[in-house]
């Protein structure tokens, strides 16, 4: 079965014993200003199963990043329901959503979004700061373990400005991994990198998915990268077209 085929039948590609981690049902997102109404997402239905590596593709402005924000519980849909581990999160409070993000979701951004004032290891520790009851020692151990996974254990005391783009993105991936999330949402993780570094990052994400079973949803413009993932979902003008 080729990725192209999967691309046409997204949900049909799920494994037999698929366990949905994230499900979007009839999702709509409308941005309203005084004069204009923009439909960013229209009736999106999508399921991401545990252990999957899914790519989301589409032209600029088609709603990919909005979709990722909704999946990451960073934004609220105008209509529809988001389910995490089978539970609808529609009525969750700010604090509950924050707790859910902390436990279940890790983010990797195109422009890394590392905090320049913090060292590499402090950046990686960041999600664990908001984990109730976790002590400093455990946080440090987990952060170092995550840095080890991305091959950056020699750079723990460096600051982001002292690293290359590829290294920064590795730190960002370590940060996403540190909290042991079920799902990593990556928004054009190679967008700011040259092709060689981009390949390295994609290989790293594939390895994490393959060997550690991390569920990954990645927004990308690069078809070659998307082809390496298990499933590709296409978007156009706010609607899922494949």
């Amino acid at each position: 079965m080729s990725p192209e085929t999967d691309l046409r039948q997204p949900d049909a590609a799920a494994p037999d014993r698929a366990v949905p981690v994230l499900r979007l049902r009839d999702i709509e997102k409308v941005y309203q200003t005084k004069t204009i109404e923009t439909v960013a997402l229209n009736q999106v239905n999508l399921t991401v199963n545990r252990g999957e590596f899914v790519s989301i593709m589409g032209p600029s402005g088609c709603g990919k990043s909005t979709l990722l924000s909704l999946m990451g519980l960073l934004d609220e849909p105008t209509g529809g329901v988001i389910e995490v581990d089978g539970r609808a999160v529609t009525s969750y409070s700010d604090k509950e959503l924050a707790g859910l993000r902390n436990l279940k979701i890790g983010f990797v951004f195109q422009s890394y979004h590392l905090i320049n004032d913090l060292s590499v290891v402090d950046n990686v520790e960041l999600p664990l700061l908001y984990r109730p009851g976790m002590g400093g020692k455990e946080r440090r151990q987990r952060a170092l373990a995550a840095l080890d996974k991305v091959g950056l254990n020699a750079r723990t005391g460096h600051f982001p400005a002292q690293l290359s783009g590829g290294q920064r993105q590795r730190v960002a991936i370590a940060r996403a991994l540190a909290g042991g999330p079920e799902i990593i949402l990556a928004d054009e993780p190679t967008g700011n990198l040259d092709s060689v570094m981009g390949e390295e990052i994609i290989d790293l994400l594939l390895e994490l998915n393959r060997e550690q079973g991390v569920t990954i949803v990645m927004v990308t413009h690069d078809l070659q990268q998307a082809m390496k993932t298990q499933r590709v979902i296409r978007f156009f003008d706010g609607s899922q077209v494949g």
Partner: protein
Amino acid sequence: MLLSYLKIAWKVLMRRKFFTFISLFGVSFTLMILLVVMAMFDHAVGPNAPMKRVDRMLFVNTIRHQMADGHGWMSNLASIHFVDDYVRKMKTPEKVGITTASANATAFTQSKLLPLDMAYTDGSFWQIMDYDFLGGRAFTADEVAQAQHVCIINEATARAYFGRPDVVGQTIEIDLKRYRVAGVVRNVSAAQVYAYADVWVPYTLSPQYFKDDRLEGDFLLVLLAPSAAAVPAVSEEYQQMMKRIPIPRPKEVKAIYSYADPIVPGVTRGILGNEPSLQNDQITKFYVLVGGLALLFMLLPVLNLVNLNVTRILERSGEIGVRKAFGAASIDLVGQFLVENLVLALVGGLLGLGLAAGALALVNEAHPVAYAHFALSWSVFGWGMVLTLLFGLMSGVYPAWKMSRLNPVAALRGGGEQK
């Protein structure tokens, strides 16, 4: 988590040094002025020797006569008749002491004139006040009753007149009268108006010591309550006593007013002037006004800080977005920002304390008030810290709230869109 917040706070301060300098300057300069004022206030009215028990003391510094037919007011100190026949008969005070405002006197040494400030007191006054005696003792009641020519002098007078402080039993000549030195006390600041003088002699030697039926005289009264809690009862009994005093010369005088107040309300009553019956609620209003002015004074650097902080939020929107994405709830961000602001305020506060200490050293060097040594006491330091924390909170709460309301998606894009 706190360590991480502190790390970030320090980095943020160091990142924009000029902004940080302006913020710190505003906080530290304002605090310096407030602390200097507080140190002076504490020096004048705080529980410092010899007024260590100031929390139990009440003072009577005026008897006001409201004249009939709109002829205005007449304010005087108290007479011995008033003290002996009314105040000393009160039941609630533990002791009633009298003194006078210090008056000019002159001692003659072999080589020069020595100008002195002289006060007349009774024996109880020395039991109410806690002067530090370098040698000798206070007057006895007998010495006062017999109008013996004894005196107590301060250390400066002893050194200027005799060249040394251990002069108990020696004779000093003041205004051509000879007095035996009964005791030598440490210098008392002229800012402590009720306790200050260079030399004290029995009030029975005062030219104003004569008995007739007038209420007005030359004496300041110091009443010692049995405890701080009993102060209002003493004040109340004094009011009741005043109501019972027959109005002298009823054709000329319409009413008489006098109050036994703790030291600060007494000063306040003095500042507020000739209100016919200044009641406690008006004094409270005065405190609220003074407190309000102090807050207003603090508000300037606070507004400056708020402004700088709000600007800084936009610079840090990416960080806020990331923190939210990784699980920071709004309340976590408010906490973080408040910690950062408290660190800034604390640094400013410590600088302010240092500046205040420097300013007070300069003031002390200039000797504007005789024997005054203004210093930052622990209580002033404590108040300084309270003010600092107040600064930190006042200038941090609004920006922190604004920061926590940033939409994470917009924040990650670098915008400042609110939820």
